[in-house]
């Protein structure tokens, strides 16, 4: 898998406080990478170092094969940025903002005009393209800066809290657009507080805490990994003997709740296989079988608060 972003031992110190402490990670081509962490964990500082807005005190960042320190222009040419705060020029119209971006990314005028029309249509702002941005709502501004970040059709997109504080319509529009972009091959680095958003969108997430990366994995794996024991809920079409169930290999405990059994096990895969064999042996049919994983919210809270399961 090709690494689009390679961060190695990235460190940033403000005065005597270490905001980002030797973090290393890769983001692969075509994936949506979620970057999570509590307030002040170092998410925005890391994103700013990755995008070349501020220099790292030590460590290296390679974007699309270009070192952000030694080849900043070449690296920046390949990505778009949607920052946390809307930073379109409010004294310019949406059209002028997009044309400015087109010029800053070196697009020929005709191509910039074509892309601007397409993107304004895509984010639902075409009819208000000649209105100054200062009259836009927060959602409209956010959609505009997303369009501005996409003017040069980047292969990599950085987004810092893109849906924070937005109405449902704008949020859904942006998320749908991100999915669509990713389907077409755009790699996305998404900083977010919204666990549900990360859970639904991201192929992998990295969790940063106090400047250190505490976990990187796929959301589902991360949820499972934080629990050393697993809960499985199973129900059968008729009564099965409780003691036989509890004696199955790998089962720590089996408690009956209503018509279901809640099973605690250390090896989920082995227990599921045992349950299937057990039901066959008992001549029973499995009606439901659910693995109860913690939510990404729970995973995040445990990882960032140091809670033990």
């Amino acid at each position, binding site marked *: 898998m090709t690494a689009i972003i390679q961060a190695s031992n990235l460190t940033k110190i403000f005065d005597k406080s270490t905001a980002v402490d030797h973090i290393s990670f890769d983001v692969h081509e075509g994936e949506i990478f979620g970057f999570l962490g509590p307030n002040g964990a170092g998410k925005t500082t890391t994103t*700013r170092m990755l995008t070349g*807005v501020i220099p790292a005190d030590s460590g290296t960042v390679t974007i699309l094969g270009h070192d952000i320190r030694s080849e*900043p*222009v070449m690296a920046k*040419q390949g990505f778009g*940025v949607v*920052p946390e705060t809307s930073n379109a020029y409010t*004294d310019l119209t949406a059209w002028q903002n997009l044309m400015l971006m087109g010029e*800053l990314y*070196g697009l020929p005028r005709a191509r910039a005009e074509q892309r601007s029309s397409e993107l304004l249509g895509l984010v639902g702002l075409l009819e208000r393209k000649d209105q100054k941005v200062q009259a836009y709502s927060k959602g409209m501004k956010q959609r505009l800066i997303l369009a501005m970040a996409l003017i040069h059709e980047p292969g990599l997109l950085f987004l810092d809290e893109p849906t924070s504080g937005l109405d449902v319509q704008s949020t859904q529009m942006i998320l749908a657009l991100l999915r669509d972009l990713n389907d077409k091959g755009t790699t996305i680095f998404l900083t977010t507080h919204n666990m549900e958003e990360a859970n639904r969108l991201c192929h992998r997430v990295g969790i940063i805490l106090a400047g250190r990366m505490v976990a990187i994995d796929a959301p589902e794996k991360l949820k499972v990994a934080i629990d050393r024991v697993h809960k499985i809920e199973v129900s059968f079409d008729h009564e099965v003997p409780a003691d036989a169930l509890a004696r199955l290999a790998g089962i720590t405990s089996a408690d009956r709740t209503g018509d279901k059994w809640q099973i605690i096990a250390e090896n989920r895969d082995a227990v599921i296989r045992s349950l299937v064999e057990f039901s066959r042996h008992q001549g029973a049919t499995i009606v439901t079988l659910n693995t109860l994983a913690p939510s990404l919210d729970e995973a995040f809270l445990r990882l960032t608060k140091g809670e033990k399961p």
Partner: protein
Amino acid sequence: MNPSGFPEQLRRSWAIAKKDIRIYYIKGPVLIFGVFMPLFMFLAFLMGTREVPLSFLISGLVGMTLFFTATAVSPAIFPWEGSAKTLERLASCPVTVEAIVFGDMIASTLFGIGITIITVIIGLALGLSLLHGITLVAAILIAACCFSAIGMLLAVPPTNVPSNIMMLSSLIKFPLVFISGIFVPLEQMPSWGLMLSYISPLTYFTDLVRYSFTDAHFFPIWADIAALAVFTLMFTVVTMVLHKRTMPQRM
């Protein structure tokens, strides 16, 4: 297209300059300030001074206009954009710090030249004759670049509070006007004043404007142009080096 090549970065500087002109320069208050500020200073001296001829003061007015207009807005652009977070957008675009600074310089140079042309027209309307037009055009072009570099140099301290920079800017700009032979001819200056005037690029520009309108000059013309060119180069290089160093502190 090589995005980091000089021609491409120059093109992007021009985009930044156009943005600056749209946002910061083509505003009623800025245009009015650009014309009226030097005009009122000129009128104050015209009423208070009887010993110097009108042609002398008009030349000074042209010098002052270019100096004030080319340095009027540029020092505040970085603080404004820093506080509005638009500077962060520029910093994340494939544009070098030098290209951003140069774009701001182009805008202030063009603004300075535009307003100064109005002042020259006023001078001609008041009956002054333009004796050395080519010298005047060359002087305005070089000095506009020089003063816009000074304007950007004033913006180097990495603050995002525009009023801090404007205060610093006034503290430096106003004394320069008084040591540059605008209101007091260089010939009448005390020796310490004359020594100070040598370090002001405005001195050489005013001398060139005076030569263009009255044929009189204090320094040789080639020396005036050479001094302005050296100051322009020096201020441009220094401002770019310093901005590159302080830019991350604005983010």
